[in-house]
C-alpha cells in the first residue's frame, strides 16, 4: 500500500524566521491509504500544528510533505474539521457546508444533495436554513464535520471533533464515522485527548511528545473493532497508551 501522507524530517517553528519556538525538528510520519490513525499527546505538543502543516495552512521551515491522492474535479483531496467549529456567522448552516464546494466542479443540484446528505449523517437533518447562532456548541461542531465531509475528501483531518459532545452523541458519531470510513475508504488522521476514543477508532495510535515534538510511540491496535467498547483486551490497550502518555509527559518536562 502506498502512503497518502508522508512527512520527511519536517521542521516547523513559529515566530519571526522561525526563531521563537521550534515545534517540530525532525518529524516523520506516514499514513497508508485507507488507514484510520489517531493522534494523542499533551496539550501544546503540536497536534493542531501538524494538521495545519498537512493541509498547507502553515509552511514548514524544512523538510517536506508528500500527499498522494487522486485528482478528482468534484472533490477536494484534504478536508479539515477544526478544533473550534469556526462557522461563518453570516452564512446559513447550508451555506456553511457549501463553503468547500464553491470553486470545485459541483453542480447546484449536487451541492444541495451533498448538503442534505451530510446534514443527515451528523443527525441535524432540518437545520440547513438556520443561522449558526441558533445552534448549540455541539451542534455547530457537527456542522463543522458535515462541512468537511461534503467535499468528499480522500484525507480527513479531524482536530478533537467530538470533544464538545455528550457521551451518547459522541458514541453515535464515532460509529457513524467508522461506517463512513469503511464505506468510502478515506484516510483519517484524528486528534483526541480521550485515550479510549483513540484506541476505539484507530488502526494505529500515534503518541506525540517531547520538545521539539516527535512521534514517541506508534501503537498498532489489532483488536477487532467489535470487541473494542469494553472487555479485558481493550482496557489493556487503553492502559498501555495511557502509560505511554505519562512517560511522554515526564520526558517532555525533563527535556525542558
Amino acid at each position, binding site marked *: 500500500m502506498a502512503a497518502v501522507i508522508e512527512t520527511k524530517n519536517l521542521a516547523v517553528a513559529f515566530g519571526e524566521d522561525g526563531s521563537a519556538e521550534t515545534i517540530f525538528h525532525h518529524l516523520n510520519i506516514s499514513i497508508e491509504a485507507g488507514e484510520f490513525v489517531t493522534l494523542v499527546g499533551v496539550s501544546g505538543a503540536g497536534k493542531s500544528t501538524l494538521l495545519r502543516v498537512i*493541509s498547507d495552512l502553515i509552511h514548514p521551515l524544512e523538510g517536506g510533505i508528500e500527499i498522494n491522492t487522486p485528482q478528482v474535479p468534484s472533490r*477536494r483531496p484534504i*478536508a479539515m474539521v477544526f478544533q473550534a467549529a469556526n462557522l461563518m456567522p453570516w452564512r446559513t448552516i447550508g451555506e456553511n457546508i457549501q*463553503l468547500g464546494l*464553491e470553486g470545485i466542479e459541483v453542480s447546484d443540484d449536487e451541492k444541495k444533495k451533498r448538503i442534505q446528505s451530510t446534514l443527515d449523517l451528523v443527525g441535524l437533518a432540518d437545520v440547513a436554513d438556520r443561522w449558526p447562532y*441558533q445552534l448549540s456548541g455541539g451542534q455547530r461542531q457537527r456542522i463543522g464535520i458535515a462541512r468537511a465531509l461534503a467535499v468528499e475528501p480522500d484525507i480527513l483531518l479531524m482536530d478533537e471533533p467530538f470533544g464538545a459532545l455528550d457521551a451518547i452523541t459522541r458514541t453515535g458519531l464515532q460509529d457513524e464515522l467508522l461506517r463512513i470510513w469503511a464505506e468510502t475508504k478515506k484516510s483519517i488522521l484524528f486528534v483526541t485527548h480521550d485515550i479510549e476514543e483513540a484506541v476505539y477508532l484507530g488502526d494505529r495510535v500515534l503518541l506525540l511528545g517531547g520538545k521539539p515534538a516527535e512521534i514517541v510511540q506508534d501503537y498498532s491496535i489489532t483488536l477487532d473493532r467489535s470487541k473494542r467498547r469494553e472487555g479485558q483486551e481493550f482496557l489493556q490497550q487503553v492502559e498501555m497508551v495511557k502509560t505511554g502518555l505519562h512517560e511522554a509527559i515526564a520526558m517532555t518536562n525533563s527535556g525542558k
Partner: protein
Amino acid sequence: MKSSNRYLSSFAGLVGFLLFWEVLARSGIMEAHLLPPPSTIPPVLISEFKLGIWQAMAWASLRHYSIGFFIGSILGVTLGVSVALSPRIEAGQAWLARMLRPIPPLAWIPFAIIWFGISETAAAFIISIGIFWINYFTAMSAVQAVDRDLIEVARAFGHRGFFALLRKVILPAAAPGILAGLRAGLGQGWMTVVAAELFGIEGIGQRMMEASGLLATDVVILYMFSIALLYGISDFIFVTIQGRILAWQR
C-alpha cells in the same frame, strides 16, 4: 420593556418636552421672539411650503448631503479597508492620518471656497470630509478585527486568493463595523450640512442665516425641525436596510 410601552414612553417624552416649551413661551418666562412657542411653527411651515421655499431648500440640502455622503463614504471605506489589509499602506498613512484627522470639516471652508467657489461642490466637499474620517477609521478597525480563524477555515477549504478571501470572509465579517460607520456618517453629515451652507450656498443653512438676520426665530426653528426630520427619515431607511443585511446577527 415591551415595544408598545417603549413607543408610548418615547412619545410621552417628546410631547412633554413640547408642552413644557409651549408653557415657557406663553407664560412670558421666555420672551416669544427669543423663543417662539412650538404652536407657531405649523403656520410657518405652511407659508414656507406654499411659497415653495421649504421644498427648494430641503431639496438643495439633500443634494449636497447625498453627494457628500456617497463620496465621503466610498472613499473612507475603500481607503480604510486597504489600510487594514496592507502593512505598507498602514505605515504610510499612520502619521498623515494623525495630522489631518483633527482638522474639523469646517476648517476646510476657506479652501472649499477657493477651490470650488460658492457652489454645490464646495458644500458637498465639506460634508464629505467628516464622513470620510468616520468611515476611514471604522472600516479600518472592522477589518483589523476580522477573526483570523475564519480566514484559516476559508483557506483550508480552497479559498486562498486575495480577492476570494476578501469576498468570502473579510468583507462579510467586517460588514457590521462598516455599516455602523456608515450610519454614524449619516448623522455627522446632517450636522455639517447646515454649517457648509451658512456662507451662501443655497439650502437649509442659508435660509436659517437669512431668517436669523430678520429675527424670524420661528423660521429658524422650523428648519431646525426640518433637519431633525430629514435625519430621522434617512436614519430609519438606513437601519431598515442594515437590519436586512445583518439578519445573521443574533
